[in-house]
């Protein structure tokens, strides 16, 4: 289901029939902004994106324009990598872009590639996304046929090829350096940082921009409506709109495009139709499974933008809002969450490899009634020992929610203990 937000930038044409067909897409303005962009200086394009306040929608929320600006001036070749791994539980927005408006993404990626003068784009798609892969692959072929990709694009003198790559279904390949390793044909183990930030040393040691699908899809719209108007749509420091993936105990789950800073409870009640069967709200996970849980009280008056959610002790992440009603057992929820991360731990660094597995075994005890009260403290301590001590953010992705569940719903864990 596609959202019915009042301001639809990305999803504007999602309902158009056959939009994946280039002829139809062209009628709806596809590649118009690319035509404009290639007439500008590459730096001008970057400046517009910077001015728009566009932030990374993959989870980190880092300024996209600033990231593009990190590319070293004298190092070639350069690459753009579209991160379509989308494997954070609760997140399902990139898939819609792939399926409904692939040309928007391709156009955005091409504009980005032009801005950083990249010669090759890699579209990295989650392995399980069979249908989206097919749709995007066809769209790429159509773009080539019309001269939007390939040699001397739109007679600008600039050439850029587009390559498709399917992941093998590992969560960690959504982490930008894990994704790069995977693209290079290696095991998806994240790279040690610093100093190797992809913008400086990325794919095959060359400057590489890794941006999320949604982030890049916004780029043509920014050029279309102007940076100022885009910035004005959201809340301060959070330009434009976002695709909110709404799931859980909600009447109308789906993806909703709304301005950044839309109040959380408006999303839940107004757009999502509230919690079914008259049940009460217990909690919300605001930004994918790796974000801290928010209690029902904490959800009140919470604008959904990066700063406001962070101020409340959680994060907007990929804007995957998961609604939890009073019937859900938090210990069970935690077990499912930990099970996911323990399974997806790549095994490279010790705290994550050993810690997530241990957390999993402890969390299981709350389900079968064998837990003791000290297990609650042990779990908290274990999560704390993982948090911030790992190569990539997967450690924090399991530690943050675990800690927040244990702190905010300790009574439920205590009730699940046998002594």
């Amino acid at each position, binding site marked *: 289901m596609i959202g019915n937000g009042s301001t639809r930038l990305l999803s504007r044409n999602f309902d158009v029939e056959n939009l994946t067909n280039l002829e139809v897409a062209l009628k709806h303005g596809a590649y118009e902004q690319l035509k404009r962009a290639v007439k500008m200086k590459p730096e001008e394009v970057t400046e517009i994106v910077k001015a728009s306040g566009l932030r990374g929608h993959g989870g980190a929320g880092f300024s996209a324009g600033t990231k593009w600006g990190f590319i070293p001036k004298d190092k070639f070749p350069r690459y753009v990598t579209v991160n379509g791994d989308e494997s954070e539980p609760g997140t399902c927005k990139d898939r819609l872009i792939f399926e409904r408006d692939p040309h928007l993404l391709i156009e955005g990626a091409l504009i980005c590639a032009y801005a950083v003068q990249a010669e090759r784009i890699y579209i990295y798609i989650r392995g399980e996304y069979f249908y989206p892969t097919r749709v995007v692959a066809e769209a790429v072929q159509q773009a080539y046929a019309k001269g939007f990709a390939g040699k001397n694009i739109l007679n600008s003198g600039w050439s850029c090829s587009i390559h498709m790559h399917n992941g093998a279904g590992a969560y960690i390949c959504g982490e930008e350096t894990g994704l790069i390793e995977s693209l290079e044909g290696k*095991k998806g183990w994240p790279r040690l940082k610093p100093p190797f930030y992809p913008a400086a040393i990325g794919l095959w040691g060359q400057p590489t921009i890794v941006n999320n699908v949604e982030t890049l899809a916004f780029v043509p719209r920014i050029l279309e409506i102007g940076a100022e108007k885009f910035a004005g749509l959201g809340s301060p420091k959070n330009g434009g709109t976002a695709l909110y993936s709404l799931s859980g105990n909600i009447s109308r789950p789906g993806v909703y495009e709304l301005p950044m800073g839309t109040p959380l409870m408006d999303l839940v009640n107004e757009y999502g139709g509230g919690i079914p069967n008259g049940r009460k709200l217990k909690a919300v996970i605001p930004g994918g499974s790796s974000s801290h849980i928010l209690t029902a009280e904490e959800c009140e008056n919470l604008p959904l933008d990066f700063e406001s959610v962070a101020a409340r002790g959680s994060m907007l992440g990929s804007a995957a809002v998961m609604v939890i009603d009073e019937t859900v057992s938090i210990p069970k929820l935690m077990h499912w969450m930990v099970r996911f991360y323990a*399974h997806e*731990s790549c095994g490279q*660094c*010790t705290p994550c490899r*050993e*810690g*997530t*597995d241990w957390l999993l075994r402890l969390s299981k005890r709350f389900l079968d009634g064998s837990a003791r009260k000290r297990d609650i403290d042990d779990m908290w301590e274990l999560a704390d020992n993982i948090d911030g*001590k790992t190569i990539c953010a997967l450690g924090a992705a399991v530690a943050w929610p675990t800690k927040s569940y244990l702190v905010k719903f300790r009574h439920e864990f205590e009730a699940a203990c046998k002594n």
Partner: protein
Amino acid sequence: MPLLEIDGKPVETPAGMNLIEAARLLNVEIPHYCYHAGLTVVGSCRMCQVEVEISGRKSIAIACNTKAADGMKITTRSEVVHKLRQSVLEFYLQHHPLDCPICDDAGECDLQNYYMEHGLHDSRMPLAEKKHKHKVMDVGPNIVLDSERCVLCTRCVRFCREITGTGELGVFGHGRDAELLNVPGKILDNDYAGNVVDVCPVGALTDKDFRFKRRVWYMKRTASICTGCSRGCNIFVDWETDRRYKDPQRRIQRLKPRYNRLVNEWWMCDQGRYGYHSVDEANRLLSPKTKSQSNGHALSVDEVITKIAARVESAIEKQGPGSVAVIASASSSNEDLFLLNRLFIDKLKVQNIDVTFGFEAKGKEDELLKKSDLAPNRRGALELQVKPWGGEGQGGDDLIAAAIEGEFEVVIVVRHDLSTAMSEKDFAKLRRNTGYIAYLSSHENGLTEVADDVVPIAMWAEREATYTNFQGRVQKTARPFDPAGLAIPEWEVWKKFGEIAGVELNFSDVRDVFNAIGMHFESFKGINWESVGSGGRMLNGTPEPTYKRIQTSTPLTAY
């Protein structure tokens, strides 16, 4: 040069140095498993976390991947750091058996050491939940893997990818199932495979040649050099002679590479590593042998040398120095060759002498350490002018051919087993045509069977000596234990010979001999035993080679 503080002490480090190395400058050890100075930094073990304060802001960082910077304040011993180390150890020890009493790495295991220093916690993990992995797996002809003890530091994986470029090992599976294994279809059988045991910080990879032979605390360690080829890798000899009932034929228990940046860095080849077996081989020559009458008693070494000297003297007296040939060896030490030169070339005027022959075995040369020239002191022989360059005598293969044809009355052979070096026919001809053959050998072989007089000589591990490697670096071996049987160092043979022949070679010990070399040869001038030190010293006029990392030219990426 960044100036920083580590645990309150100031230290100036070279630019780009990481905190583990910077702390080492102050003798502070930051615990670590995955970091190895010779391999790429992966930062995966997380054991080296320290507190870093930069302009008033404190944070936690891994020391291996943090470069020393001006004004940094590093804390390696605090409650916070102790907790961090304890937590990492607890993660490791969930599944890793601390079975030091039965693990062959006990006493050399960093998990054991760090646990004693930073861990000492009670296990929160029930025994039944501990995971089990493969035990006692052959990963190669010399190496055994115990996966359960592996801490997945990937040092061995990186060694095989970066240093040898062969990539036989990898980490398979992910998360809790991650396990070190052979890459399918590959066995760990490269020429440097033994090094993976050295880099393994725990008891996961052990050496079949050594495992369960000795406990490390029984062994003594002596710094020496390998004499397996002309590189002269710096090594440690780990030896033990008190418990000979365990393995009477084995005094050296193992060899380990000793770091020398310009010679072998942290590594050594397997050929050198396992070459020590010859020291205590069953066919060691333990006493002198003679073909002449002995009046019913076994001859002493001195008596045999006296006989050799007498025979050489009489041959020279009757037929001149041209009747004597010396088939010398570039495997002899500088001291041996110096006295050989003084005795035969200087004093006895023997011209038919050389150290280089076509029959000498050539080794496999590679771009890492191995040199094709297996003689450890070819350069020394050249510098000490053992071949009387410009003289009238014959050298090399001409010398051998002449000997076979019976041109010499006396042939002295040092170390070479001519019975395998030449055809049976030639060997028989040599014996038939030569009036007298004296042989200095460390092992029994075909030549010891037929030579007139044989003197048992000490091997490299039984004597102090210096060798000049192919770079021109003079390095020395140590003498952890006495020579086998009645063997004596080669230079002592020439010294005794000299005494009998009335040639003044008055040296009380090997150091005297070495210190005297400088008085005769310009390239050794001013170099004395002490100045050679543990890292060796270049010959005069030979510049230190420029540093080049020992690594394959086609390394594989980190994983």
